[in-house]
């Protein structure tokens, strides 16, 4: 692709093994596992917003954790810009160098801040580590202004702030070290609708001003449509569609994407999107993972797992009506 990529992921897999009971070990039962990520590959272009969408349990959050090395992947490679070193294979001290480039914003603004640290103390720590030098307080105020808070908030504790303000402090903390890619895991799902818009606008503004790439994990298609440039749809740990926003919302290719779009409530039309009952999620042993819920299923679907098509937009299916 002609555009510069900032992060490219190749075949990342992660299986959480289930622990066996003692007697099962004795009997030599082979341990089963929950496949959280199954050969996930995509790339994040520089300075763009990529949305990862899917139902809960599809591996979105595991993906974020793997990218920030909070969780170790079983296999796969992640490359940052033109560095030819696999980020996932680095030792943790080698990875330190990249930590400041990749920052994360967490879902729950209440849980992500230390209740015993004031905003200044929260921001001070990364500033001291990465930006040795004077004027830490001025720098902290500058960052607070960037996220729309005034210097008054410098000495407040998390419990003295509302949810939206805490999320702003979270964003400020991520910005202290001048990251080049932000990974936001459901950054607004714990907030009110009116606050959601403000935070999303802020993220977009920061992304454009500092030319940061943003990987936004969300289950809300409305949010994805509002701010993302690219959309990646995940289902049971694998990428089923990878498309740009306009194509995705105009003409989704994968039947699962179609269902997701149809099931979103919208208030213009009461009868819109009667998706009907989406059947229960079942993971088949072989064939396409989506086959048990797919309305267009054909016999070939149950036999072979379809590959992710080459070209763009990419999609994973055998035949589509």
């Amino acid at each position, binding site marked *: 692709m002609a555009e510069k990529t900032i992060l490219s992921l190749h075949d990342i897999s992660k299986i959480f093994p289930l622990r066996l009971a003692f007697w099962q070990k004795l009997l030599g039962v082979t341990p089963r596992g929950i496949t959280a990520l199954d050969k996930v590959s995509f790339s994040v272009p520089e300075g763009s917003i990529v949305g990862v969408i899917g*139902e*809960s349990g599809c591996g979105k959050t595991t993906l974020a954790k793997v990218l920030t090395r909070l969780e170790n992947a079983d296999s796969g490679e992640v490359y940052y810009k033109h560095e030819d070193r696999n980020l996932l294979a680095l030792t943790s001290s080698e990875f330190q160098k990249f930590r400041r480039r990749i920052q994360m914003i967490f879902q729950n603004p209440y849980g992500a801040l230390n209740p015993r640290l004031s905003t200044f103390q929260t921001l001070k720590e990364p500033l001291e580590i990465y930006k040795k030098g004077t004027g830490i307080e001025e720098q902290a105020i500058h960052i607070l202004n960037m996220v729309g808070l005034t210097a008054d908030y410098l000495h407040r504790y998390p419990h003295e702030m*509302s*949810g*939206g*303000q805490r999320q702003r402090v979270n964003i400020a903390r991520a910005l202290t070290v001048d990251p080049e890619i932000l990974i936001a895991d459901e950054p607004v799902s714990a907030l*009110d*609708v*009116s*606050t*959601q*818009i*403000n935070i*999303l*606008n802020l993220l*977009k503004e920061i992304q454009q001003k500092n030319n940061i790439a943003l990987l936004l994990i969300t*289950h*809300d*298609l*409305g*949010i994805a*449509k*509002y701010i993302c440039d690219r959309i990646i749809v995940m289902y049971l740990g694998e990428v089923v569609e990878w498309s740009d926003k306009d194509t995705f*919302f105009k003409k989704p290719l994968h039947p699962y994407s179609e*269902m*997701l*779009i149809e*099931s*979103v*409530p*919208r*208030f*213009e039309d*009461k009868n*819109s*999107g*009667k*998706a009907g*009952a*989406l059947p*229960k999620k079942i993971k088949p042993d072989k064939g396409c993972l989506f086959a048990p819920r797919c309305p267009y299923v054909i016999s070939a679907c149950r036999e072979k797992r379809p590959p992710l098509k080459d070209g763009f937009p990419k999609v994973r299916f055998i035949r589509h009506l």
Partner: protein
Amino acid sequence: MNDLLNIEDIQVQFHVWNRIYQAVDGVSFTIPRRKSVALVGESGCGKTVTALSIMRLLPRPQAHIKQGKIYFDNQDLLKMSLPRYQKYYRGRLIGMMFQDPHSVLNPVISIQTQITEHVKYHLKMKTSEILDKANNIFQLVNLPAGEDILKKYPHQLSGGQIQRLMIAMTLMTDPSLIIADEPTTALDVTIQRQILDLLVALKSERDLSYLLITHNLAIVHYLVDIVCIMYAGQIVEWGPCEAIFQEPLHPYTRGLLDSVLTISKETKTKIRGIPGMVPEACDFPSGCRFHPRCPEKMNICSKEMPMLSENKEHAVRCWLYG
């Protein structure tokens, strides 16, 4: 009066650390029979407190209802003795669905026991009758009938299943009003849609009324006939659902509608949303409580509080229309 629920000028105060928080300030609305009403607003606007005062579940001793009356079927709920209220109203004629069903059910008691215990408290029924009825209702809410679910424990069910179970449990006592506090917020989009469709189907089938509490306007029109928009403890606009969506009057309502991100909305332009934040309930601004955030503020707005207009169809509390 032939309305199912009639709330008149209710005021709820919280006394915490010698400060008085006016959580609900003069809210009145009615739910006509077989109609549903939604209370919509940001967190901290008093919508849940209003619902809790109907359920008489306000935390004591901090909260007390300073004034106001709540009539359900012409019975004054607040004057009634608590045992009578518990037996015949709360959980019987007035069902409640909470936001997070996992924290409502007891994790160490099987679902069968929890259902029978609940029903036996309110109705004279034998266990076998209760189980028969439960199976019927399970079919209605698309849960697998039989012992499948009954013998299980809450953690063995998925989010969608447990929300269906909550609906089933509420229906066991044949209520005529269901108070649903953010019934779909904790669910996935696909499941959310199924639960909404289910609630709509039940409404006509069982002559139910809902009092829906939510901050998301996108789900409101599926379920509801009348919408009350709340801000800072007051109702700022109420009217039939279509009117609120097609010609919202109050600037706050317009801001809320603007903030809802739907996939059919054109996204080329930046959505402004509502700037600022909800004021603290102990420190409301003078005049109209929305004026610090209002894009159409006038001089009078910071001086005098507007009254809810007398319109019987679509009332608004704003000087733009006063």
